[in-house]
């Protein structure tokens, strides 16, 4: 046996997003069903288009969603918590810029016990004023903690500079933002946007016709309509700038370098996804190889596309020892320059393609993962064939095309830079 010889590698082929089965409930709500897997479990996600783009005041979207579980219909907040826990379910409200999402995980045979809670939250949430106050107090504490972390401060700052301080994707929360929140704001946000003509449901797991029928009997019987005005993204007039926010006493500094990009529907999105992966999207990426594995300046460095429904941005992030800041920044610009000036060699192209194909396959591993891809496509207004388009780009994009993209989008003068430390 020759241990120097790698076993043959078999390419991943025919990668395709399983299309969901689409149902319409009696109240007109669309349900996207992804049924696969072996475990009797359900993931149910309700997406309301009631995020930052739709709110009339900053932070209303997050606080309305956060308070839904604080009492609704016949249930007190404590009862909601008790019932969810008793049946081994969990309900979360993960942060999302563009929408308000309720995610319920349940054992299939217990779903009927917990769905009534969800219906009550959609019909008559209580929004107790004292709970809003407590929510604000807790969040002020969390904010103070976040503001003591250089990486969080750097992220807040660069997104605010890129989109502008009043833009839905750019604004940050401050104590004053919280101080302006009133119960009426939440009620208004809820009444106008948490309606059955402004939401979609995604269900995945081992889904039976009985489960769909159950959904229709419960959520399908809920009926509040609204009048949602389409969102027109405000114009953005920001210019790239560099900022260094000093933070005394830290042993590391956070670096963010990035720019505004675009949403998933842009023709260059898939190519930029590949380019960002090559630069800093996996362990073997250029930034990791240079700044961690060659120089040992950091535990982690990455680049990523942050994608929203109506826009997007690209950024590089890392935390490095204070003594390494200057050279790290130089090395980052050097790596970006290399992307612009030299096409990647065959070996690297092969590696990025293979890595990404594996990672796309992982996105289709199991009902919950597939369900989340389906949710992302619908909620970001991208067609299902986006997935296959991305696969095709990964398989066929050339080194020259990547170089062209780098020249189009990664000019140093177009990049924002924030250092905190």
């Amino acid at each position, binding site marked *: 046996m020759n241990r120097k010889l790698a*076993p*043959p590698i078999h390419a991943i082929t025919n990668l395709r997003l399983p299309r969901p089965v689409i149902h319409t409930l009696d109240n007109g709500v669309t349900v996207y069903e992804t049924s696969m897997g*072996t475990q009797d479990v359900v993931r149910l996600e309700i997406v309301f288009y009631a995020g930052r783009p739709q709110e009339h005041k900053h932070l209303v979207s997050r606080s309305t969603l956060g308070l839904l579980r604080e009492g609704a219909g016949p249930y007190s907040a404590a009862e909601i918590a008790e019932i*969810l*826990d*008793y049946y081994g379910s969990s309900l979360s409200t993960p942060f999302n810029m563009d929408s308000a999402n309720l995610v319920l995980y349940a054992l299939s045979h217990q779903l009927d016990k917990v769905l009534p809670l969800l219906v009550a939250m959609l019909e008559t949430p209580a929004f107790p004023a004292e709970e809003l106050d407590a929510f604000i107090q807790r969040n002020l504490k969390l904010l103070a903690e976040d503001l003591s972390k250089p990486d969080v401060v750097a992220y807040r700052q660069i997104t605010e500079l890129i989109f502008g301080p009043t833009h839905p994707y750019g604004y940050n929360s401050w104590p004053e933002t919280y101080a302006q929140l009133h119960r009426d704001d939440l009620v208004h946000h809820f009444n106008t946007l948490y309606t059955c003509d402004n939401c979609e449901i995604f269900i995945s797991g081992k889904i039976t016709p009985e489960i769909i029928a159950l959904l229709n009997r419960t959520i399908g019987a809920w009926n509040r309509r609204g009048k949602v005005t389409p969102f027109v993204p405000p114009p953005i007039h920001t210019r790239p700038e560099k900022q260094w926010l000093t933070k005394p006493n830290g042993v590391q500094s956070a670096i963010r370098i990035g720019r505004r990009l675009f949403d998933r529907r842009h023709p260059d999105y898939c190519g930029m996804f590949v380019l960002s992966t090559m630069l800093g999207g996996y362990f073997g990426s250029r930034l990791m190889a240079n700044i961690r594995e060659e*120089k040992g300046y950091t535990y982690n460095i990455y680049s990523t596309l942050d994608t929203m429904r109506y826009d997007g941005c690209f950024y590089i992030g890392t935390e490095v*020892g204070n003594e390494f800041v200057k050279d790290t920044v130089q090395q980052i610009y050097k790596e970006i320059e290399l992307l612009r000036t030299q096409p990647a060699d065959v070996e690297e192209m092969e590696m990025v393609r293979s*890595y990404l194909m594996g990672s796309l396959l992982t996105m289709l*591993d199991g009902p919950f993962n597939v369900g989340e891809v389906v949710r992302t496509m619908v909620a970001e207004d991208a067609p299902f064939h986006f997935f296959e388009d991305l696969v095709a780009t990964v398989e066929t994009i050339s080194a020259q095309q990547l170089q062209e993209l780098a020249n189009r989008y990664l000019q140093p003068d177009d990049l924002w830079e924030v250092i905190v430390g």
Partner: protein
Amino acid sequence: MITFQRYILDNGLKVLVHEDDSTPMVAVNVLYDVGSRDEAPDKTGFAHLFEHLMFGGSANIPDFDDPIQLAGGENNAFTNTDLTSFYNVLPAQNIETAFWLESDRMLKLRFNKKVLGVQRKVVVEEFKETCLNQPYGDAWHHISDLAYKTHPYRWPTIGLEPSHIEQATLDDVKQFYYAYYRPNNAILVIAGNVKSEEAVRLAEKWFGSIPTGQIPTRHIPVEPPQTEQRRRVLHADVPSDALYLAFHMAPRLAPEFYASDLITDALGNGPSARLFRRLLKEQKLFAHIDCYLSATHDPGLLIIEGKPSEGVSLEQAEALIWQELEQLRTTPLPEVELQKLKNKVESSLVFSELSALNKAINLATFELLGDAALINEEVRFYQNVTTEDMHQVAARLFRPENCSVLHYVAPRPALN
């Protein structure tokens, strides 16, 4: 129920295979029976540093990550007090790549001065990022130091201080490798879209010829029972006050562990848990509160951490927590609450079986603890816990002299 087959190669390597054809992937996990509890007190953090070095190339393969990525896979590793675990997830058709890579770095690592130099720096940056440059990032250092006086759990896996990592030499590396990274000190688990016969054939082919090693006998000092409460107050540059209470509890396999785990859930797991519901939601005296356990193989810790609301002092906050603990000591838990806790455990076990990687890591961990079949006994162990067990265990746990207390005092705003 997780079914698996077990084979032991002639060199002592334990091989477990779990077939799951509902996934296109396969997870390959190699666990080594060595953790930070096996370190010398003046060379702490070494087991974790060594984990980093395992990616620096082996006898026949210059780089570990490239081939895995070319095979469309991902890999990573973690070290804790009790074990070091390396895992690979890749498309099932490329499973052999993982066998090739993992066996070569078990056969012979490339001892490389440059790799050691760089990874020492990387780990020191990791130390800074997770412990020094985060508010409360050194909490685990203080808790371990307070709760353990003899047992090597007294230092965290990341190490006591960066200088221990900076001083690691190539000789230390070689010695550690030949002492612990041998087939008879390892467990190989393959879980996912693979047939047992194929997995065993590949295990035999790639790992079968790796020579056995002489594994040092473990002499870990037993932590003597704590007899009086230990307290530490830190005046630190943190955004708000915080407190931690750490109680000694049973080791992972002791019958008592299951009641302790359910007590932890009663206090801190889920929106209806006692501490969260009563102290944070109803009385609004905390901005954050949580309860969890270290679940170590030797006797571990049950930890409660909290941040009091504005205007609530650390002393008041601590007294409130003790009141809740006192209730568990004096009043038996209602049956319906115990049933709720058991339902939650059962549900989380079902959900944990959704991922092949999860199953691989859990099988390896239970095999290390003595028998992978224990993974299917867990539900029964939890189901057998009675309210009386809960009561007794709570009474043993929540004694003031069994507790270490850590307070962080934030700087007070200056008066104008």
